[in-house]
Structure formats: C-alpha cells, structure tokens
C-alpha cells in the first residue's frame, strides 16, 4: 500500500530549525503572493518566494532549490502586506543549509578567499593597498576627519579601481581631510552575510570593528552601498560613528559649493539605483542630485526607478553565481537603460558596475551604452584642481 | 494656689521664639506672677544638673523651641520629657523642623565640608573638621555630636501640643499661656494650638481670579507687587494655600510679602510641597512637555520654597544618600 501514498508529511524538525535560525517571520505569511509578483526574477524564470516560504514553513521538500536564487533586493519586503522581512528568511535558510554543507559550489571560492585572504577574489592580502600607493591615496592618520572605506572590488579589481581613484581624487579636490583605511580593515562582509555564512561574517566584522574602533575620525565614507549597509545595519552601533555613502558626500559638497563641476559629461544618462543604496538605505536623491549638478548632463529615468528599481543580479551572492543567458537580471536592466535612449548607464555600486558591464558585453551593446559611476562622471566634470 | 511650674528651652533654632515670648510685653509680668521657672536659658541662669535633680513630671509645662540637631538637643529633649507633664513643641523648628531642617537636603559631610573647608572666610588648609572628643593634656574635651539628620521634636520624644510659627505670634502665645494658667480645659493631646483650622487664604483679603494661569514664576526681588491681588495670580509662589492660618499675616498684610509657610500644614493635608505642586502645577499654562519644563525652570529650588519650614515633616524627609 505504502508506495501508493503520494503524500508528504510536514517535516516540523526542519521547520523548527529554520525558525530558530531567524526565520521567525515565516509564521505570519498569509500567502498572498505579492512577493512573487513584484520579484524581479519573475520576468525571467519561475521563482516564487511565496512558495518558498510555504514549503520552508512546513519543512516540505523543494525549498532548497529556490534558496540561492534570491538577490536580496528587498522589493518583496517593502511591498509585503505583513511586513515580513523575506530576505531575512532566505538568509536564515541559507545559514541552516550551509551548516549542513550545502553551500553552492560557485560560492565556495569567494568564501575561501574571504576566510584566507580577506577578499572574495582570493587575491593575496598584501595587494590590498597597492592601488592606493600607486595613486597617492593618503593612508589614514590620526589627524584625518574622514575614513575612506573602499570596497574589495575597488582594491583588487581593475575596473572598479578606476572608481576608487576617482573618489580619492574628488576628496582631495574638495579638500576633505581623509585617509584610506588600508590593511587594518578587511571586507565589510555584507554580501557574505546574505549567503548565511554567519561565523565568517562575524570574523570580518570583528576585524573592522577593531580597526575603526581605534581611529579618531567620526565619519566613515564608503564607496560601495554594501559596505554602507553592513556598517549601518549589520554592525552594532557601538562605534558612535556616522557612515555615509560617497554620493551623499558629493551631494553635500556640491550644495555647499565646495565642488563646482564645470565640464559637461555624457549627454544623456540614466541612473540605476543599487538595491543596497536605495531600498535598503533610502538613498535615492543624492546620486541624482549629483548628476543633475553636472553641466550638460541630461538625466532620464528607466521604466523602473527609485523604490521600483530592478536589481542588477549581483546581490545576495548573485555576483558569483553563473547564470545562463536569458536568466540574467543585468541584461534586463541594460535593455531597459538602452530603451531610454541614454548613452551612459550610471550607478553607484561596484557590484552593479560589474554585473551591468558584463551584461553590456554579453548583449554586444558596447558601442551603444557605457557603464560609469556617479563619482567617475563627477570627477570628469571637475576641472584640474577642482576647487575654486 | 501654687504657681505653675514652667520650663522654656532653646535647641537648634535662632532664638526668635524665646524673644517672641517676651514680645507679649507687659503681660510677661502677669506670666511671671503666675509661673515659677525651672529652666529658661535665655532669661535666667540654670544648670542642667538642677533639672536632672527634679523628680519626674515635676514641671507642669515646658515650651521647647528649636529642632533636634545634635546629641545635646536630644539629651535635653529626653530630660525635659521625663520631667514635664506637658511638653509643647514651640515654634516652627520644634514643630516641623523649621529652617535648620533644610539641611536635610545635604549630608552631614557636605555641610561640614562647606562650613569648615569651602566657605570663603575659612582658612583651614589641613581640612580639620570638628571632633566630638579631643584629647588635651588636661584630659578629653567633648562637644555634642552633630546628627546626620535634623528632627522635629516629636520625632525624638512624645509631644502634647504644637504651637506653630516662626516665631509664634505673641498674641497666640499669650492665649496659650493664659489658657494654661487659668486652668481652662485643654484640647486633646496632639493638637496644634494657638493657630487656626483652615488655610491662610481664609483670612487673606486679596482678590483672586477664577481663571488662574501660570505662564512663568516671578520672584519677589524683581517684581512689582500689587498689595491687593493674590500672589499666585501675580505669578509668585505664596504658600498661603498650604499653610495654617493664625499667624496674623505679618508677611502678607503688613509687609506685602508672600507667605513662606511657617505655620505648617493645615489639618487634612499631609505634605506641603506635594500639595503645593498639585495646586500650582495644575494651572501652568502649557500643554507640551517642553513648554511645561520651561515654566517650571523659572522656579529654582522648589524644595527650598515648599519645605522652608516643614522639611522634617515632609513625606520624604531628606535627600537620598
């Protein structure tokens, strides 16, 4: 008889483990499906956060597959009528699965890199500050008022080094008293926290807390929205420090008249909101204000912008996961950008830069659209010396 | 008829109460006629030993003024208690602690430090503080021990009656003495005598509004005072509403000054400060916490205002250690 019983029983032990790992809010879901309908993956693949929650809640088979798809863009959470922190549920499940040894192979490399060398590219730790030395970025000294915290991507990855150099150049031009937190610091751990690697994240956090705990500056400026998010939302507020994103700094310096852009940039640009700057941290206008302040730049919006912006696909560990053509959120975003008629797709996050550039290449649109950062465009527009 | 046996004593106080007895003027002769004094340090010479030698309950009436501040005050209070049939807490200090009890807002250490080390006129580089016993070549010199706390008389010994005031109104004093001397029936023990049964406002003729609003507290020194209008209506703290009537209103009527509360609580309330806050704060003209705090801040030293004469009898009694 038994083989004819095609029924599944709830696996409450599994469900209980998920609840204990921080998936408490699983219980309040009433299965309306808003999450699924607003999830950007819906445009490309079959993916239902709702079904994920329902299966996870009862410990039913099937939720494991969906676990690693989520890019933590937070669209679902913002729209959830029950105000459920759905990204957190994914993180909790990931934590449980990782403990059981089910980390996807693609993630093992960056995890090993972070564990061994403090960066996801498995580059030797010694190379961390090479970019700064080469480009005369001042190292942090006690008299500095601002800490510059660069993303691993700015440090180890060639494309994003350009952004880092632009940031340092602008800070110098504006006369900001700043220094770069080099070897004492390490990766902020934000993206790794989203993959459920809690213990590794705590390790990285400890290193950074030690490094920042010892400095006298009261403000830290990050280039990546992920570092910003880690400091603002995942680190304890014990440091008593203010954390700001570079675009917020530029916006302020422009308003105060310290920075005066004079040379025009690209004629028509569109701005892609990084999820971790926008939805996660509520910064929507600062980068736009910067772009609007640059002479000659015309800012147009894509179909999805501000709170409705679509993820580049790099969040939640997505940056390291290979996806077949036709299943790339970055492609969707680049096509949306192209359809605005813009010649430049501007963003403000190293991972967005990586993902969007990969899509531009993959779609053979190199001649049609460039990917730049807000800092790069601003840097271009500041005359040599910058400050009058 | 034998003369009434009387003692008058002065503990922690200024001496004004003693003087007030003399302020009954020529009637003091009648008192002298009717009374035999066994102790009255300010007026006559007696030794404590003489009192100690008296049989218990020998004295008919003791008027005890002053608070209990040190071991000597307490010793004499207990002595006079033993020797007296009727012990009267005479004046604010004995009644409710009076001005000396404001010291309860400080610790003994703070007071010593202020008096013997900090005060501008003091030169005391070693920081020497009073010692209760000092060895000298001739032996040991002792002075009374200062207590941590200032007490009203009834916090140390049982008391039959209270005559309030700083000082008591001479007319009231005469009424009390006359009653005792003439053998009139005395009220039940524990009563306040020589004072009224209502609050001071009852006999105050100042005009009051029916729509009181306090927008800020004024101070006597910096405000022109209208002699016909209720002080509260002028934004001044007047303790009249929480003070027993009977003083004759030397302050309010004769001097155009708000009542300071020396006659103590009227019957029916338990704490001058608490009641004054309840009454005054209710009519503060503000609704937002910030605005209320601003108005409250215009009245510094509330405890000093409200418990000027009644700290010993206040519900909290003293500052927390």
């Amino acid at each position, binding site marked *: 008889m038994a083989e004819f019983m095609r029924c599944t029983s709830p696996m409450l032990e599994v469900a209980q483990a998920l609840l204990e790992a921080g998936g408490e809010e699983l219980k309040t879901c009433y299965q309306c499906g808003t999450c699924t309908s607003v999830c950007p993956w819906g445009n490309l693949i079959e993916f239902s956060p709702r079904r994920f929650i329902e299966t996870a809640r009862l410990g039913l088979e099937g939720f494991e597959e969906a676990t690693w798809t989520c890019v933590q863009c937070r669209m679902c959470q913002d729209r959830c009528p029950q105000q459920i922190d759905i990204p957190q549920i994914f993180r909790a499940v990931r934590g449980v699965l990782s403990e059981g040894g089910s980390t996807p192979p693609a993630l093992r490399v960056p995890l090993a890199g972070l564990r061994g060398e403090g960066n996801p590219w498995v580059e030797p730790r010694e190379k961390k500050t090479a970019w700064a030395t080469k480009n005369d970025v001042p190292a942090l000294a006690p008299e500095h008022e601002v800490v510059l915290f660069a993303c691993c991507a700015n440090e180890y990855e060639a494309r994003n080094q350009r952004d880092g150099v632009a940031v340092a150049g602008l800070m110098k031009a504006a006369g900001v008293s700043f220094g770069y937190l080099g070897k004492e610091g390490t990766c902020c751990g934000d993206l790794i926290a989203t993959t459920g690697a809690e213990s590794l994240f705590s390790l990285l956090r400890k290193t950074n807390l030690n490094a920042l705990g010892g400095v006298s500056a009261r403000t830290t400026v990050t280039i990546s929205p992920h570092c910003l998010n880690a400091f603002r939302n995942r680190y304890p507020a014990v440091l008593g420090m203010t954390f700001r994103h570079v675009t917020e700094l530029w916006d302020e310096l422009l308003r105060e008249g310290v920075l005066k852009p004079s040379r025009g940039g690209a004629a028509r640009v569109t701005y892609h909101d990084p999820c971790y700057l926008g939805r996660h941290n509520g910064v929507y206008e600062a980068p736009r204000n910067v772009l609007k302040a640059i002479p000659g730049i015309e800012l147009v919006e894509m179909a999805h912008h501000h709170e409705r912006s679509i993820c580049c696909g790099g969040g939640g560990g997505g940056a390291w996961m290979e996806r077949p053509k036709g299943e790339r959120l970055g492609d969707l975003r680049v096509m949306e950008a192209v359809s605005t008629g813009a010649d430049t797709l501007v963003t403000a996050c190293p991972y967005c830069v990586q993902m969007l550039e990969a899509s531009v290449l993959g779609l053979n649109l190199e001649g049609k659209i460039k990917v730049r950062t807000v800092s790069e465009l601003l840097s271009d527009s500041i005359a040599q010396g910058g400050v009058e | 008829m034998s003369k009434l046996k009387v003692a008058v004593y002065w503990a922690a106080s200024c001496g004004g109460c003693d003087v007030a007895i003399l302020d009954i003027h020529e009637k003091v002769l009648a008192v002298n006629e009717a009374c035999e004094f066994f102790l009255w340090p300010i007026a006559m010479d007696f030794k404590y030993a003489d009192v100690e030698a008296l049989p218990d309950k020998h004295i008919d009436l003791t008027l005890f003024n002053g608070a209990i501040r040190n071991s000597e005050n307490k010793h004499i209070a207990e002595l006079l208690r033993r020797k007296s049939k009727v012990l009267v807490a005479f004046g604010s200090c004995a009644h409710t602690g009076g001005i000396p009890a404001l010291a309860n807002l400080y610790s003994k250490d703070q007071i010593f430090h202020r008096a013997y080390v900090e005060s501008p006129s003091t030169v005391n580089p070693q920081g020497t503080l009073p010692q209760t016993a000092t060895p000298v070549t001739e032996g040991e010199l002792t002075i009374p021990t200062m207590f941590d706390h200032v007490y009203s008389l009834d916090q140390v010994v049982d008391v039959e009656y209270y005559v309030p005031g700083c000082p008591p109104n001479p007319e009231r004093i005469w009424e009390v003495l006359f009653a005792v001397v003439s053998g009139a029936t005395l009220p039940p023990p524990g009563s306040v005598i020589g004072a009224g049964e209502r609050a001071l406002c009852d006999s105050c003729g100042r005009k009051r509004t029916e729509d009181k609003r306090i927008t800020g507290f004024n101070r006597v020194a910096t405000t022109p005072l209208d002699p016909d209008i209720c002080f509260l209506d002028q934004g001044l703290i007047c303790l009249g509403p929480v003070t027993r009537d009977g003083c004759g209103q030397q302050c309010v009527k004769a001097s155009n000054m708000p009542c300071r509360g020396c006659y103590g609580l009227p019957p029916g309330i338990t704490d001058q400060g608490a009641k004054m806050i309840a009454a005054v704060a209710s009519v503060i003209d503000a609704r937002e*916490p910030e605005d209320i705090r601003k108005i409250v801040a215009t009245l510094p030293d509330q405890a000093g205002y409200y418990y000027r004469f009644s700290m010993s009898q206040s519900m909290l*009694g003293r500052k927390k250690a």
Partner: protein
Amino acid sequence: MTNDPKIVAFLCHWCSYTGADLAGTSRIKYTPAVRIVRVMCSGRIEPSFVLKALKEGADGVLICGCHPGDCHYQEGNYKALRRFHMLKEMLGQFGLEGDRVRLEWVSASEGDRFAKLADSFTEEIRRLGPLAWKRVGNESERRVA
C-alpha cells in the same frame, strides 16, 4: 525573586486601566513587580501619592493616563503632565534619579504597550537598584516608635 523591584502604577480608569485589562484578556505576560492602583482620571493623581508610594517602599512609580486629546474628562491628563514635570524637578533635589518616576500615555487599546512598558520600566528600576526610602535617615538618632 523577592529582591525584585516594587513598583506602584497609578492608572486612570478609562484608558490605562482598561489597557492593562486588555493586556490581561490578551494573556500578555509581564512582570508581577508592577502593582496597579486605579483612579478615575490621571488628573486625580497628586504628587503626594507618588511620595507616599516611595516612602512606603516602592522603588519606582509609574503614572499612566489617556493620550493627549483623549482624556475622558477632557484635560485631566494635562494636569497630570504638569504636576509630573514639576514633581520630577523637585524629586531631583531630593536626590532621586529622574527615571524612578515616569509618566506614560496608555490607551484602552494598548494592552501590549502597557505590558511592554511595565517590563521595560521594571528593567530600568532594577538597573537603578533598590530605593529603600523607608531606611533613609538614621535609625539610632531617632526615637524608637
């Protein structure tokens, strides 16, 4: 457990007491340290109640009334608010930590809030330690009653 703080809470009948009832009917658990005394309106609450409670051994006093604008008797809560601020100022002179006496608005529908408030206030008082006002003063100097 007997070392737990003792807290007297004065609650107005219409909002806060009803809110505390709602915490009960909703079976929300909170500390037993908070003991409730009911008055019809927070406007009835006098500073002497607070002093009495402190003197009788309370470590903290909580005053709750209707939210501003919601007073069943129009403005009683504003009167409580004014007295509270003036009393707090004076209690400071008596060396009392400002947080030992607290005023909060709790509506009839805020059972959950009342329970949370009871817990957080008790926690705060526990942090401040026992008040033991009954023992303030010097027993040896005073007459033995």
